[in-house]
Every structure is written in C-alpha cells, then in structure tokens.
C-alpha cells in the first residue's frame, strides 16, 4: 500500500510542479502584456490630451472669427441678433405628407383589411 501512495504522491508533485511552471510563465506573459497595454493607454491618453488642446487651439474664437470673415461670401455668417429670435407659433408648419389619392373624390367606400401581408409581396 505504502509504495502506491509514494508513487502517487510523486506523480502528484510532478504534476503540480508542471502546473506551477506553466502558471508562472503565463502570469509573466500576462504581466508583460499588461505593461505593454498600460504604456499604450498612457500614450493614447497623452495623444488625446494633445488633440484636445489642439482642438481648443483650432477652435479659438480669434481664428473662427478670421475664418468666418475670410469665407464671408460663401457662408455669410454674422453675429446673432435679437431679431432672429422667434415664437414657435409664428412658424408655419409644412403641410402634412399625405398620399395623393387620400380624400380624393371617388373613394366613398373605404375598406378595412386585417391580417398579415405576405413578406414577398411587400418587396418594392
């Protein structure tokens, strides 16, 4: 009985050792990958900060003002004025999009249909 236990425990030690070896190397790989990713994230953050700064720089009011002056003949941008405020009630809403034949003379017996339309007949 005893030798069997010895052999079994020896095999167990070997197995665990192999498992620990593989785990160790996997952990190291993961850590290396993590460091790489962290560096990448840091670089991207840096780039992001720089791009934000550049966005703010390119959108600075001075530059936009100059650009709108340069492109005045195309865009015609002028400062907002009080007269440009309006009431929603004064805006004439567009006529509703109705099918041309709806309400046309001649239809005096509308039919109501229920049920599913066959999918292939729905194709245009």
């Amino acid at each position, binding site marked *: 009985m005893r030798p069997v236990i010895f052999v079994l425990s020896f095999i167990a030690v070997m197995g665990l050792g192999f498992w620990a070896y593989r785990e160790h190397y996997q952990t190291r790989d993961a850590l290396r990958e993590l460091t790489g990713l962290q560096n990448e994230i840091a670089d991207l953050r840096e780039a992001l900060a720089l791009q934000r700064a550049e966005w703010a*720089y390119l959108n600075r009011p001075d530059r936009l003002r100059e650009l709108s002056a340069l492109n005045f003949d195309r865009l015609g941008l002028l400062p907002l004025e009080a007269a440009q*405020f309006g009431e929603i009630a004064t805006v004439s809403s567009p006529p509703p999009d109705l099918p041309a034949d709806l309400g046309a003379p001649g239809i005096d017996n509308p039919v109501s249909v229920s049920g599913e339309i066959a999918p292939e007949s729905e194709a245009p």
Partner: protein
Amino acid sequence: MTRTPLRPLARILQARARGENPDTIERENLRLRHEKMRDKARARAEVRLLILGLAFFSAFTVIGARMGLLASTQPEEPRAAAPGAEILAQRADITDRNGRILATNMLTHALYAHPRDMIDPDRVAQELVKVFPDMDAADLQRRFTDGRRFLWLRRTLSPEQMQAVHDIGDPGLLFGPREMRLYPNGALAAHVLGGASFGNEGVHSAEVIGTAGIEKALDDRLRDPAQAGTPLQLSLDLTVQAALEEVLSAGRTMMSARGAAAVVMDVNTGQIVAMASLPDFDPNDRPNPVLAKDAEPGDSPLFNRAVQGVYELGSTFKIFAAAQAMELGLVNPDTMVDANAPMVWGKHKIKEFQNKNYGPLLSVTDVIAKSSNVGTAHIALMIGGLRQQAFLKSLGFFEATPVELVEARTGRPLLPKKWADIVTITTSYGHGMSASPLHLAAAYATIANGGEKVSPTLLHSENPQPGPRVLSEKVARDSVMMLRRGVTHGTASLADVEGYEVAGKTGTADKPKRTGGYYKDKVINTFASVFPASDPQYVVLVTLDEPVDTTGPEPRRTAGWTSVPVAAEITRRIAPLLNVRPVVEDQAVTAVSAVHN
C-alpha cells in the same frame, strides 16, 4: 536530565535519625528546582527578546533605507496606470462654464547638456545657434568648455526644435520630459487666468505653479492630485468673453482710451460671465514689463483694471443714495427734492455738469435720469453719513472683492479717513471714494436681483446660496425702473438696445492727479447697466480710461458719448449668446387700423 526527587529517602532517614524535620529537605529541594526553572525561562526569554529586537531592527532599517532612497531619487513625471487613472496631468485643466478648455497641459521636453560627454562642443554650439537664433555661439562655447558638468539650455521645446536638436546627434545634449501649461485661446481672458511657470526643476520633472490670476489663487486646488482629473469649471463663457473683448477693444480704439475694462455678471448668482481689461497680454508668454517712473500702474498690461483698478466711479453711485432713501421710507420715486444748483455747503460749491440747473425741484426719478448732483446731495443729507456708510458697506464697498483672483486683494477701495457731511455729499455722486468696477457690478447686481447681496465669483456652481437681503424687492424694482428711465429719457439714451430694455446709469469722473486735485480733460467714464429691466438677468459694466469721442464738432468726454455706445454694442452682441429672449416692448400704434367691410 534526571529529576532529583523532592524527598530522597536516604537523606530523610538520616535527618529523622538526627531528629531534624524532614520537611526542610523537601522545601530546600523545591527551592532549588524552582531556581533552575526560573533560570531556564529567563534564558529563553532573553533569546526571544533578542530575536524580536533583531526583527524590529531589520524592519526599521528597511523602512529607513526605503525612505532615504525615496528622498534621494529624482522625481519623475507620473505615468498613467491603467485602472481609472486620469492622472496624466499634474495640474488640472481649467474650462469655461460649457466645458470648453481655457487652460490645459501639454507634454514637451526641456533641453539640457552634459558638456563632459560632448564630442565636439564647438560644432554643437554652432548647430544650436542655427536651431535657436536667440542663443549666442561664443557664449555657449565658453560655457561648454569651462569644466562644468551640467547646464540647462531650454525650458520647453517644440517638436520641430526637438527633432532638429536630435539631428545634431551629440551625446552631450539630453532631453527631460516637461509638462507645460497651454492657454489655447491666447490672450482671451488673460487677466482671469493669469499664467503659470515652472517651480522646482529637476531633470526628469518640474513643478508647474500659478503665477497670477486664478492659477495662483487656486493653486492648491489645481495641483491637488485627488482632483487632477476633474477640470476646474469657471463661470466664464468663452463666446461671451470673446465677443466682449472684441467689442471692448474696438471701442477702446474708437474712443482713443488709455485703457478699458468690462464685466458681465449674472445678477442672481454673482457669477462673472465675462471680464476683460485692456491692454492685455498672452498668458502663454507672460511679459515682464518695466514701467516708466511716471507711468500709472494701469499702463502695465498685467494690471487687471476690472479688479485691481480702483477709480472714483462718478454718477453711477447716485442710484445707491436713491435706493437707500426709498428703503428708509424718506422718499418715493415721485417725491420732489431740492435740485437748485449750485448748492453751497460750507466752503464747497456743488455744481451740475456744464453748470446747468435742473431745479428748483426735481422728482427722484428725474434726479437719476438727468444725473443731478445737487438732487442726489440733498437725498444723501436726508440719509446721513452713518446710514450711508452702513449701506455702502452692506453692498461690499468697504472691503476688497472676494473674487478668486490673487489680484483681488490689492483692489481694496480707497475710503476717506473722516466721513464728514461733505464726504456724504460727494460720495453720493461717486466722488471722494474709489472702488473697482467689479465692486460696482456686484452692487448693481444686488439691486437688479431684487435686493439680495451677491458676492462676485468666477467659479461655476449649480446651486448658489442667496446672500442677505439688503433692499426690499419693491425698492429694488423701483430702482431698476429709475435706471431704465435714465436710458429712455436721460443721459444714457444711446444704450437703448432694441428688445433688451437696458437700464443703467452713466458716470463721468474727473481723474485725480497724483499730486492732488483733478485733471481738467482726463476722465474715467463708466456705464453700469442691467438688462432686461422687466426681469433683470445680467449686469454689463464698461469703464473707459481717458476716452474722448471726436465724432462731433468738439471732443466729448461724457460717459453718455463714450462708454454707453460701447456697452450698448456689447449688450447687443452678448444678449443673444446668453440666450436672453428679446422682450417685445410696447410699440407705437401703427397706421393700420381694423376696418369692417
């Protein structure tokens, strides 16, 4: 170890034979045994103490060594770690109320040299001068060869310059990472932001510290690592600020003014939406001007006229006397007061502008609308000096403004030492005491919001706390209506912006000479206004230093011709940006009439 029995039979028998008590032998043996046990226990305890002592010693040694190591290593720029670390910047960004960036950080590099590692110092000096034309080749050469180990060459580099230095290819030229402060909008809001520079500098890192403005006033908040990820949100609005500076700068040029300042403030919260002072500067490249000896401090572009500049603000103060008299129940808007000019008080003579006489009697509303010095003086005398001081104090005129700028402390109002009756009179129309434009804007905001005191602030806050009540709502409303009349029927008629019901008061004050007395033809023109009068939301205040309007046959120096049109243009531009809907005012009946057919 053999254990000796406590009662060895041989000795007991002997003792019995001698007639002694055998118990003494047992006790003796017991004593010896206890002594042995004690010695053993002590020895073991000593060993334990020694081990414990060693453990403590090595633990403290490790901690001490680690501390020493940390203290002696060079600081490094922080690197972003993955989990949730927004901390790349060591200094928080500053944004406007809508989150647009006013100040941020940029990673760049500093250039330094190790001359001993240089292969060819002469060539390096020549090449460096090609990249940086402001450097001197001979001087560089001397410094590279005088035996020093280390020298700084440049605090910040652009990427192109860095590449050019790389291309020189000398191992003695080295780069250190630097985080620099960037103000992408250039000179916009320069006086509010102030500027930043490097503090302690090392090879791998440098402190960025605020040098002026809000950067210095809130330096601790901006450098707090716990809050580095959350930007500091100001109450400024970038677009409003840009429009304000554009109009103010044009106005300053048109009126040939020496300087100008303007403030736009939310009347309910005291939040400053825009604030400008001209001349200004670029905080990215903060100048260090040397002023001539006889120059005014305001001539420096660094001087914030809106906060630091204390001026006699002239007739803009009249509304305070009128409002206080109404609050005390002494007058109402229609009460007639004595306005017979000139008024003689002791050896002083109080006159009106251009020696006019609006008297003998004038209603309080017209005193404000026509800007009568004499009328205001009589109202002030009704109030009395003590109550006048208390009221001005409650409006914040007796101390520096609490705004979050390091310069605010220097903008302390100048008050007369003794408050005699003549001071009561002159203060009522804004002479004799000086305050900053920001003081005045806060006081007008207090009147405009219905009488609750506001403290000017630059920080954006969603739920501001209302201040103590200074005026009753009715008096505040009546005061705004008086100011409105000053625009529709009075001195500020050019301020009437269609749709925005501007209410305001002009102020023209002679400039005091440094040697005493006043200049004849140098004035400070102020226009303080609120809009819209029916439901005031914003204060617009414009101050021009030594303006003159030359469009007429003779030069005009009253605020009605200089500050008022500038303020009107500012209101016209910013009101739509601030989303204030124009008010449809009562229009004259048109020619069309309803006809039945």
